């Protein structure tokens, strides 16, 4: 018997199988080898990160390729990039939860997990970026003996609050969603250690009706809070640039432009992880081709919207006709860093067009490659936005190029390790796919089928 067109999960599987399959992943882990290979790479990168940070704190940000005028580069650029990635998880989950799109249930868990660690990577960068990081706490309002407070007109000050709020809400949202599964894992755990571990995390969940009703209310409220946050946070990040007067930054286009770009890169990462885990844990029955198909569509949609941003940025400049903005536009398109601009355009939008074809969307490896290209493209875009504005701003006499040093790169790749290590641990020790939610979806579908 086959699934009807509306079904996203094959209905010919029993609920018990699913929960056994999913809770089984942490308890007796499949694909140990791949996991260890991935983990080794991750750890190497993490070590690289630690070394870079030690060097950074001992010698100062001068180890990077920064100069005047380019006082912002890799640190801010990767910060924005990571934060962008960190948007998909919550967006998918919350938004689709509210719109009641059932297919989300197979994706939200690891999407949210990914979000958390991406945001952590993002959150680290502003600290590394500081000339005197040990005074970071001056950015927080507290009754200081100096009688001085933070400067609340500064986009950086807004930034701190935006990111911290987003991080905490994401954590809560993720954890709330996790509770029933933790209980499930607790009940299936055999060893005492696991039982206590999951037991405490499950907060004594018994799955009673009252639990369920309270839980779903909480979960939806959190989602309702999270969605506007996703938008506000990245809009705020964009103000880091738009609030200045620099040519190429000073534009009302930036907030939506950044939010869409964030979602775009985020969904790309989700797709990559979806395809990877699907292959790694043989979850074909839960993350089905239909899921990939939907992901492909979302990716295409957000991509096209981002593309609109590109187009409008040019139109805006030409229409505005400010000589300095035009200068910057030229620097971007034909200047020393033109490869960044065109690189971003190519990586972001050219492979993307393949997603118009259903077959491509439904082919794992194709989706994976396209998503990877998008991730690179978005990285180039953030680089481009920062450097092409700063290296040639208003006064010709201060124009100067920027070249990243070894430490720029090592810090960046290091953060990838910082992201992978906890993420791999997470998929190792907690259910990667929301058990009860998939079960619920399946149940509904089966009922629908049996009529």
């Amino acid at each position, binding site marked *: 018997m086959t699934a009807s067109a509306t079904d996203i999960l094959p209905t010919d599987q029993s609920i018990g199988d699913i929960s056994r399959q999913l809770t089984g992943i942490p308890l007796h882990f499949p694909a140990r080898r791949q996991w260890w290979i991935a983990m080794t790479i991750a750890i190497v990168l993490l070590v690289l990160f630690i070394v870079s940070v030690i060097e950074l704190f001992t*010698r*100062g*940000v*001068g180890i990077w*390729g*920064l*100069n*005047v*005028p*380019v*006082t*912002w580069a890799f640190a801010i650029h990767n910060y924005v990039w990571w934060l962008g990635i960190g948007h998909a998880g919550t967006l998918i989950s919350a938004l689709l939860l509210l719109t009641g799109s059932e297919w989300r249930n197979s994706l939200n868990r690891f999407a949210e997990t990914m979000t958390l660690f991406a945001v952590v990577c993002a959150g680290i960068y502003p600290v590394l*970026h*500081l*000339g*005197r*990081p040990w*005074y*970071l706490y*001056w*950015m927080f309002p507290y009754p200081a003996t100096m009688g*001085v*407070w*933070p*400067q609340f*007109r*500064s*986009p*950086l*000050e807004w930034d*701190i609050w935006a990111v911290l709020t987003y991080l905490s809400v994401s954590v809560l949202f993720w954890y709330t969603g996790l509770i029933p599964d933790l209980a499930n894992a607790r009940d299936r755990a055999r060893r005492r250690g696991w039982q206590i571990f999951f037991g405490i995390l499950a907060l004594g969940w018994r799955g009673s009706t009252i639990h369920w009703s309270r839980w779903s209310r909480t979960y939806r409220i959190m989602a309702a809070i999270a969605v506007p946050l996703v938008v506000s946070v990245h809009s705020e990040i964009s103000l880091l640039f738009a*609030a*200045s*007067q*620099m040519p190429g930054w000073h534009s009302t286009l930036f907030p939506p432009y950044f939010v869409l770009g964030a979602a775009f890169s985020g969904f790309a990462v989700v797709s990559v992880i979806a395809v990877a885990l699907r292959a790694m844990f043989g979850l074909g029955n839960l993350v089905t081709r239909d899921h990939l198909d939907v992901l492909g569509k979302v990716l295409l949609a957000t991509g096209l919207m981002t593309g609109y941003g590109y187009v409008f940025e040019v139109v805006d400049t030409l229409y505005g006709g400010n*000589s*300095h903005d035009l*200068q910057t536009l030229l620097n971007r398109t034909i200047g020393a860093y033109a490869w960044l601009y065109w690189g971003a355009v190519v990586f972001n939008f050219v492979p993307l067009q393949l997603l118009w074809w259903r077959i491509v969307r439904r082919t794992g490896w194709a989706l994976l490659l396209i998503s990877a290209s998008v991730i690179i493209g978005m990285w180039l875009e953030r680089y481009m936005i920062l450097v092409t504005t*700063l290296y*040639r*701003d*208003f*006064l*010709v*006499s*201060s*124009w*100067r*190029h920027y070249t990243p040093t070894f430490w720029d790169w090592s810090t960046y790749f290091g953060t990838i390790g910082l992201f992978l290590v906890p993420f791999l641990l997470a998929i190792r020790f907690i259910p990667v796919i929301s058990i009860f939610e998939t079960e619920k979806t399946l149940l509904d579908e089966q009922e629908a089928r049996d009529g």
Partner: protein
Amino acid sequence: MTTLPKQWTSIEELAGDPAFAKKIAAEFPVAASFPPTARRDFLKIMAASLALAGLTGCEKSPFVAGIPYVDQPESALPGVPRHYATAVTLDGYAQPVLATTYDGRPTKLDGLPGHPATQGRSDVFMQAAVLQLYDPDRAQSPTRAGEPVTWTDVGAMFSDQRREWQKDGGKRLRLLLSQTTSPTLVRQIRELQSQFPAARVHLHDTSGERERIAHAIAAYGEPLDLHYQLDACSVVVSFDDDFLGPGPRQLLNAIKWAQARRRGDVPGIQLHCAESIPAATGAVASYRLRAAPSRMPHLVETLAARLGVVGASVNDLSAEERRWLDRTGAALNAAKGRALVTAGLGTGAQTARWVAQINETIGASGQTLKLTSPVADPGVATASLDELVIDMNTGQVDTLVILDANPVYTAPGSLDFASALSKVKTSIHIGLYRDETGHRGTWQLPLTHDLESWSDARAVDGAATIIQPVMTPFYDVRSRHQIMAMMLGRDQAADESVRKTWRDAFGESFDAKWQQALRDGLVAGNAPEIQATPVSGKIEPAPPGADGSDIAFRLDPTVWDGRFANLGWLQELPKPLSTLTWGNVVAVSPAWAREVEVENGDVLEIDIDGRKVSGPAWIMPGQADNTFGLWLGHGREQAGRVGDGIGYNAYSVRPAATPWLAQGAVRKLDRKETLAVTQLHHRMEGFDLVREVSVASPTLPAPSPQPSLYPPHPSAKNAWGMVIDIDSCIGCNACVAACTAENNIAVVGKAQVEMGREMHWLRIARYYVGDVETPRSYFQPVPCMQCEDAPCEMGCPVHATTHSPEGINQMVYNRCIGTRTCSSYCPYKVRRFNYLDYRYTPEAPAEPVHNPDVTLRSRGVMEKCTYCTQRIQAAHVAADKDNRDLRDGDVVTACQAACPTRAIVFGDINDPDSEVSKLRRSGRHYALLEKLGTRPRTTYLAKWNDGSDDEDDRT
């Protein structure tokens, strides 16, 4: 007048205290490198100030030692600066200065107000002299073959020598002098010759003063100094004479130039300049002609012919040259009595003679040209360096005394002085450093720095200054007069011989006059004017253009002839037109670069009759074709930790016969060097960064008001503002050097400058407009604009940069956490960031030179121009203490004080009568990037375009 030696007696012991010495060592890494004797003296000097200042602020324990005097002198007032009038020297000429000292430690020099030769203004060398005082690489005690000896040994050596000299009246004794104007030294040299009549004195000067006098002799038949009276001119014509460029005469010329330029509502003086290698003078010229040096004689003779000088014949000229000569001839004819023609070194004797004739014809002499007997006169008949080398090689020299010169490095390569020196039995080098010559000499006797010497010298205008020490020497060194006295068989106190000279001069009431002279830093009276007429008679026609290319030699605009090579401040000072730091280049013309496919940094090999040197190319817009420029003063080997091995040594290919212009070949090597330049892009790209007005339309359009979301800041009584007159700026860098000295600007070194991390708070932006062959050049000093609606203030998350009620963007280092947002948001990019800890780099200035009123910035903090806020606060305190308002001129910023052309004016824009307010009402007044609505407090006066592309010319 100084009473310093007395002051320090109270703390000698303190200096000996080991615990304290340890603290000093921590505070002054420099001191650690001193030999014991010098170290003790140094500590002695430093002790009081340090002790009272509290050694350092970052001590772990909250309770630090407080060390008072045992017996505090009346004059000592800890933390309050005292000022002394004295002088430093450049090429032997006095640069009269007012030295600012804190607790006995000089930290800043400014031109001496009221002195005719400086009028309170300064140049880069004067500003940097104080850094040389503390140079840890100075020779710190006498040495014999490199081994430290005592001055007693030196005394013994001299008495032995004297016995030798007496045998044959000093026949085998030679004295090699650098250029000097010191009456006392002249007296001592005379005395030496009277004691040893057979001894010969040779003169070696690197700066071309001898050639100047030789030209004067050729033109007027007697040795003369030519003093340009630019303030009396309305037309000046320069043949490759960079009289506004660096050198002892720059200050005086620039001051007078600016006076003339500002005469009336329209430019009061026009400059016609035929120039081979672009320099300051050509950059400000109204009509500039690109011409190879070897063309100058032809051009000047043709000009003479047009002005009807007898015997002058018209040479064949290019259209470009003819056009320029037409205009120039007409201008001179129209301005007889108010015009002046000048010729530079390397243009040859014929040029000098034609110029003299022309000046006679246009009635310059007495009006715009003042002649005096040479200010720099050794007082005895002297022979040249070439003759000395011949005698040395032929073994006629047993004892060679080299006084304050470094011939092994600075002698033309063709002489090969080093090998000649090795043939001398005893060579005694007397100098500030144990330099190339000092290392090869038998004895090296360290000199005191001018700021720790009793001496005297004359300024370029002939006025004498008695040089008094502003601190006791902290190395084991002696002044040149003490050492000369030893040669004369006496052992004298530092000031004795100087006093003797002036006792003779002043006659009765010596003490009063002496005190007066010390207080004023000036002895009344200067060189008397001389009436001289050009020698008549036929002037041989200029030789036809020789084969090979013209290779012109120039002294480096920042390290001069190499004597300042170890001063980080000067090495890192961007050179006027190229903005190059840390090194020298070979300037080539754009056309040649295109032809040979040379880019900036490609290494070129210069070959002058067989001697070769190679250096990186620099394509100089506006440079004459077939002409190459080499800069002397780099490629030092024994300069010290900062100056060694930077750039190439152009002396090595310098011909002794024609030291300023040679013929040679240039070829491209396939190597490339990275050049540390501070400005990479020089075209204005069609932006109106530098604006121009012409006589036809002398006012700029009024700016449209820019709306702002923020309410205007309430203003205090004083609102500070600055106006910079682009028309007056000659790009001399004095302001940048002064800012560096005043505000403890870090020296970051070549590598960091290459990365774009120089720390100068004030940069002189340089732009070219027009085609690369004959561009118009502009200098635009860019300090912090102190915007009233400042993007930086809005960006900082921690209130580290805020707005003061007097309208200054305050940068608070100790609050800064280094987000660098302010710099990202700054449209003018005037902020500088401490990417690394630049306080203790190898190139960093010695600690004692730092201004104690300005914080040393640590790693990770932003910094920028503060309008010299420490001076503003000091003025406020002074005014508040006697409860009065500030007057215009109470606050003078370092850059403003230094500027020789008074292009920078600072003051209170709330006071309608202040000079700055008046300038802000001028028709030439405009704000940089005013469309951004930042409302800068630092604004500009547009440049007068009275040159080649104004209306009358286009028709």
